[in-house]
């Protein structure tokens, strides 16, 4: 096999450059992630007129079922070199969950089974690290609430990149182990995610490393669009009436929307009319708070307090843009308690056989709350985005689950159990309160 140095590949003719999301000014493609005129975040801009004649439904469907089938819409110059098998996760028709929460036409996009690290972060990391190699970077890193840590560590290991992963010191043990095992340099920081993130920004400036969620963020975030393309294709090349997405930094919900819009711009689907609904934990609800209180800017949360660590970002980078999308699309945002999160983790598992992490509990519980509020109507086709795997956050749900019955290996004891002490069957509350 001939090895090509990704750093030597000329810029893709499909990428127009970088564009400030505030003032719209164009910048060259680089590892600077913000506009030097006004500090606005930069986003990758494409030549859609060049992409449109190159793509078709047949082309995409003829390629392997992973996120790179959508490569014309992704910001690499050459072929991907990291995370070649990411994406292509199931869209599950969730009739039993739908009945429990009061939505007749419900789907679950299940990124809890993404490869290799069981969360949607594998999508963003595949793009960010492939791009890091195109920039010639040898050391990468991230600030993380856990899922990103796992994914950067695993994908960096497979790509032979050195990685520094900084996490808040109160992170779940499984997420720390699931990072260290890949040989990453894991640093546990006494502080909140936002403090870790600020430190990483300073490290990125100081060392010139590629932090996927900071100076590589414009490329990283593009990976999330593939969740949107997949949803549309899996529904038969159309978009749903509603999408419910968890929000931490607030980027995913916007990128699913961008994915829908790009498919429409390429003439592959009708113009989307999807309403976007955002889900947070009440213990860290800067974005849902700003939507509900009709504030343009979110109020940052100093000390997030929730079992849902993966959404515990008090000062979300995309908070402003997420809230704007939610308002303009006719959606809404809500937040739920830790008890509701646990209950709905078990509900999703018990109805659909999908064990999602705490953020999945947030998404299901918020969807149920939105139905009860009349914000989502029972007949509206709705997709829930499940973004991470429950095996990573087992402790958070353990306390509400029944302990197994213990018996001797004798048939009469088993029979007695059936008569006297069959394990409790959990019933969901009715959808309409």
């Amino acid at each position, binding site marked *: 096999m001939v090895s090509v140095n990704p750093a030597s590949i000329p810029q893709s003719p499909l990428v127009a450059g970088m564009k400030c999301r505030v003032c719209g000014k164009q910048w060259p493609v680089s590892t600077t992630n913000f506009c030097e005129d006004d500090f606005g975040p930069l986003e990758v801009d494409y030549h859609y007129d060049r992409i449109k004649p190159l793509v078709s439904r047949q082309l995409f469907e003829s390629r392997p079922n992973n996120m790179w089938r959508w490569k014309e819409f992704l910001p690499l110059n050459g072929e991907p070199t990291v995370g070649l098998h990411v994406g292509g996760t199931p869209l599950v028709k969730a009739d039993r969950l739908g009945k429990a929460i009061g939505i007749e036409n419900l789907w679950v996009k299940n990124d809890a089974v993404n490869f290799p690290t069981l969360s949607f972060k594998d999508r963003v990391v595949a793009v960010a690290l492939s791009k890091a190699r195109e920039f010639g970077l040898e050391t990468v890193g991230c600030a993380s609430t856990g899922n990103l840590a796992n994914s950067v560590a695993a994908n960096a290991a497979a790509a032979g990149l050195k990685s520094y992963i900084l996490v808040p010191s109160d992170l779940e043990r499984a997420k720390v182990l699931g990072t260290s095992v890949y040989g990453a340099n894991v640093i546990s920081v006494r502080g909140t995610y936002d403090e870790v993130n600020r430190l990483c920004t300073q490290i990125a400036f100081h060392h010139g490393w590629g932090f996927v*969620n900071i100076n590589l963020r414009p490329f990283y975030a593009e990976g999330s669009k593939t969740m949107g393309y997949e949803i549309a294709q899996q529904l038969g090349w159309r978009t749903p009436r509603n999408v419910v997405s968890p929000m931490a930094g607030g980027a995913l919900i916007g990128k699913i929307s961008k994915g829908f819009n790009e498919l429409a711009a390429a003439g592959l689907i009708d113009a989307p009319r999807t309403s976007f609904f955002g889900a947070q934990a009440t213990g860290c609800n800067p974005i849902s708070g700003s939507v509900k209180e009709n504030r343009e800017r979110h109020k940052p949360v100093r000390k997030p307090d929730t079992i849902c660590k993966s959404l515990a970002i008090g000062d979300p980078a995309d908070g402003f843009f997420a809230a704007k999308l939610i308002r303009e699309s006719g959606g809404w945002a809500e937040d739920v308690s830790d008890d509701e999160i646990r209950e709905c983790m078990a509900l999703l598992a018990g109805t659909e056989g999908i064990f999602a992490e705490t953020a999945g509990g947030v998404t299901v519980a918020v969807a149920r709350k939105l139905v009860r509020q009349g914000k989502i109507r029972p007949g509206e086709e709705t997709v829930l985005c499940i973004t991470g795997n429950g095996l990573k956050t087992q402790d958070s749900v353990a306390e509400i689950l029944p302990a197994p019955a213990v018996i001797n290996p004798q048939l009469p004891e088993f029979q007695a159990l059936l008569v006297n002490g069959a394990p409790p069957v959990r019933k969901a509350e009715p959808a309409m309160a």
Partner: protein
Amino acid sequence: MAITVNIPPPLRPYAEGTDKISLSPADATTVAGALKVLVTRHPGLNDRMYTNGQLRPFVNVYLNNEDVRFLDGEFDAPLKDGDDVAIIPAVGGG
């Protein structure tokens, strides 16, 4: 001792390459005051940091590593000798 205001690398070209400035407590008594001194000494930073007299929304400012928005008085939080002010773009996360 003095009060230090740190300039992030991407803004240094607009501050004649300077990485930080030192002030005495007599120069500025609040965080907002210290930022005003910064843009007075390096006028090239003014348009980058402010729009219509307001700090731009994606500029974060920290006093001794604490986000100024969490301090009593926010940008009017008082300064003392030895304090460290840092300007950091607010575009990480997720």
